[in-house]
Every structure is written in C-alpha cells, then in structure tokens.
C-alpha cells in the first residue's frame, strides 16, 4: 500500500519509449517516428530526440495530420525533445 505512487510512476515510465534520431536528417526522423508509432498501442507515448533543425516542424506536421497529441516539444543544448501520444484509429 505504501508504494502505490511508485508503482504508478513505474507504469508510466514503462509505457514511454525513446527514439534516438540524433545525427539523422530529413526525412529520416519522420520515417523512423512513423515506423515506431506503427508498432505502438493507442495511447502509447513516444519520446523522440533529434538535432535536425527541420525535425520540430516535420514531427509537428506528422502529429497534426494523424491526430496524435503533442505532449512536449522543446530544445535544450541543440537537442529537440519531442513527446507524442498515439491517437486512436491510426
């Protein structure tokens, strides 16, 4: 009982995958994101790391066109961290 919050945290963590696209350029981050999302269940969360300046707009466009929910999109030290939740029916 005392550990219920830890278990919740663990569950959330296990449902997030990370896709490392650092060093890859357009359209490779998009291709890899699409393939990774295809293998995920609805509601699954994917974290994408990229350093291609075009990646943020490209991934936002991909999410927008497919109805996926963007949870976070921010740059830190030249690395984009893009967090997206897979929508239903895709």
């Amino acid at each position, binding site marked *: 009982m005392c550990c219920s919050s830890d278990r919740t945290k663990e569950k959330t963590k296990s449902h997030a995958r990370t896709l490392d696209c650092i060093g890859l350029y357009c*359209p490779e981050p*998009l*291709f890899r*994101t*699409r*393939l990774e999302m*295809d293998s995920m269940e609805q509601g699954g969360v994917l974290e994408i790391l990229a350093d291609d300046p075009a990646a943020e707009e490209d991934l936002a*466009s*991909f999410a*927008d*066109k*497919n*109805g996926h929910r963007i949870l976070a999109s921010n740059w830190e030290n030249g690395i984009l961290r893009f967090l997206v939740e897979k929508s239903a029916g*895709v």
Partner: protein
Amino acid sequence: MVESRDLCIVFHSGDFERVCHGLTIANVSAALGNDSHLLFTYQAIKRLVRDETDRTENDFIVKALAGGHMKKLTELIAMGRQFGSVHIYACSGSMALMNISRDELIEEVEKSMGLSTFMALWEDANVLFI
C-alpha cells in the same frame, strides 16, 4: 486533424537521384497518412527490373550509399511497402517499348497500368512528373 491530399507521381527518368528523390517524396507523403500512387514509365521502368533497381556507376552516389547518406532504391521501396500506402504500377506501354515482361519486375509492382486508369487516380491528388 488536417486534411491532405494523396500523391500521384509519374516516373519518367531512370536517373538514380531522380528516382531516389521521387520515392523519398512518396514515402514522406505516405508517412503523413496519404496514399502515394507511382507510375513508372520509359527509362524509369528499368528501375523496377529485378536486380537492376540499385544499379549505378555514378561515383558520387556509390560513395553516398557507402556512407549511409543515401538510401538504396530497394530500401525506399521496402519502406513504402511497410507504410502500406505506397502503390507501384508499371506503365504497360513502356513495358512493351522496353521489351520488359511482368515476370522480370520486382514483386512490389502491384500491376501494369495504362495512363487513363492512372489519370483517374489523380483527380483529387497532387501530381508530380519526375
């Protein structure tokens, strides 16, 4: 969700870079959720002949492929198949012109097709000629 249109591409040139870029555009459109319909004609149809797809003697391309900066055409075709919405057709007139039969073509070719059938696909699509 944003509405977008399907894509039709007529491949005319057999130049490696042109076919590579055309397949890349087709795959990007498919990755975004659209159908891509590709009709290979004239010299481009030679790229659909089994074991000829990736043939090149261009040093720049050979080096780019070796360095992983460019994808092979066979890799792009396989990726399109994985996306499930890239459709490859061979122009029946070009097959006759080039003396190429169906059993010489890679298995990813869905069927041979005439221009009027292909043009019916592009009524509500964006069209490129490469």
